[in-house]
């Protein structure tokens, strides 16, 4: 989780990823952020996030992003 937080924080230092629960629904993360996050996560975790995975439920919280990474690693 700490590794994920540091990746997210590097992209958007102004966001409190630990506590925000509606990163997408509240419009905190925008499309450019999403692409930056996806690219960094793909590289860091050796996964392949698909366009179909770009659902608000997968990116609204740091826990949801973590769960997405775990699911893709286990696939």
């Amino acid at each position, binding site marked *: 989780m700490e590794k994920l937080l540091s990746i997210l924080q590097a992209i958007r230092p102004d966001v409190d990823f630990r506590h925000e629960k509606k990163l997408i629904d509240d419009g905190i993360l925008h499309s*450019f952020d999403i*692409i*930056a996050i996806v*690219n960094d996560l793909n590289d860091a975790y050796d996964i392949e*996030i698909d*366009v*179909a995975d770009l659902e608000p439920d997968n990116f609204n919280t740091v826990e949801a992003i973590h769960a997405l990474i775990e699911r893709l690693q286990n696939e």
Partner: protein
Amino acid sequence: MSITSLTFLAFVALAVGLYYAAPRRYRWVALLLASAAYYLICDFRLAGWFVLTSLSIWGCGLLIGRQEAAYQRRLSAGEGLDREARRALKKKNARTKTAYAWLAAAFNLAIWFAFKFTDLIIAAVNRRFSASFSLLGLALPLGISFYTFQAISYVVDVSKGKCPVQRNYFKLALWLGFFPQMLQGPFCRYSETAEQLYTPHDLQYENLRSGAQLMLWGYFKKMVIADRAAQIVQTVFGQPAQYRGAALVIGALAYAFQLYGDFSGGIDIMTGAAEMLGIHLPVNFTRPFFSLSVAEYWRRWHITLGAWFRDYVFYPLSMSKAAQRVGKKTRAWFGAQTGKLLPTCAVTLIVWTMNGIWHGTGRRFAVYGFYQGLLMSLGILAAPLTARLIRRLRINPGSFSWKLWQGVRTFTLMLFGRVLYKAPSVMEALRMWRSMIVDFDLRSIAGSGLYSLGLDAHELFILLMALLVLLGVSILQERGVRIREAVARQNLVFRWLLYLAALFAVILFGAYGEGYHPSEFVYAQF
């Protein structure tokens, strides 16, 4: 049927009456009949094209559904399959479904493209080869740019499993052609509105009240602001060579407010009509003139079109293998930070050029889209530099003055963009830009000069007052005040005084009558 006509109001009243009078299980049929009647009244001859599009996506949905069912059967039959075999099966299933979606998307895009661009291509061929092929002069089927793109969203979402297959053709046709969204959007996703259309709603005073309030506000924006500002726009952009500096700036300002009042007003009218039926369409505008950056502006203006391009073009292109390959090279050439951003910038330019082309045929629309993409790309690339500059100069990014600067900068950039969009040609737009910057001379509009731009002093005063009302309402909305609910909570006398004042403002100050020609909705012509 113009939506500012009494015929339209009578039509809405009839549709609402028919809907609530119908037995609950047939209420969606009432909506379908109303939508079909609306389309046939507006565009009888070209309705067949809408039917063709709706049939194509219905058939495509069924094929995707059949493929998915076959995949599930194979999966459950082959329980002994190893992980690799399951993966291969899953990949093949996804590929087949995507191929079906692509087929339907390409078919419908081809129809849209043929209607929009055939004459443009013929004219270009005639020019290039001194040929004399006749132009076809094809009339666009009503709402083709809206329903085609909405249709594509359905097949893509079904193929990705984001929404269910609709097996009932008539229900799918209702979702695609629901009359309030038909003319100028908003773009609705199947998962957003379909169930609302099929579920019977009971007559509720709140829905009628809230819908009527929104319609009234929409008429105010359209008839008091947009159609009045249109007089200046017609004067200045009709013969731009005759005007310079300050007059051109006023023309551009008038166009910005005309377009906003026209489009957001039209959407309010239609969203209000839908609300009276208990159906909530997605929000399409959230006060774009308060944006602090170009990217934010486009998250507040025509939101559903931006979201369409984001989800169906920007994300797939940005996450494609090609973009990743380019990204690796740019990182090697330009370093990790800039190199990582360059593919996103390139995709942004492509997406926004496409967005410009969606808006109209002609080079200037593509250039307009490219201009927007360029502004956003520069914004992304300059972000680290801007952040450093803010730290060095000890600017408080939360301060009012800094936000005011950001807002004025964004508004000015968008104003120049609108000139590009509205001018007769790119070259003329560039001449206007130059004049607006280097030839800004207030004396050119001093005295009676200002009143020669299409509105006399009295009309200009009404426009300014109406814009002040718009500003006041927008500020309240920006602060989170839910104005319709707030008005509804007031006591009976005050509440109805407000309603009557708004109604009489539209009736008395609506730009119609002698000398005025009610403008067609700008976006309805796409």
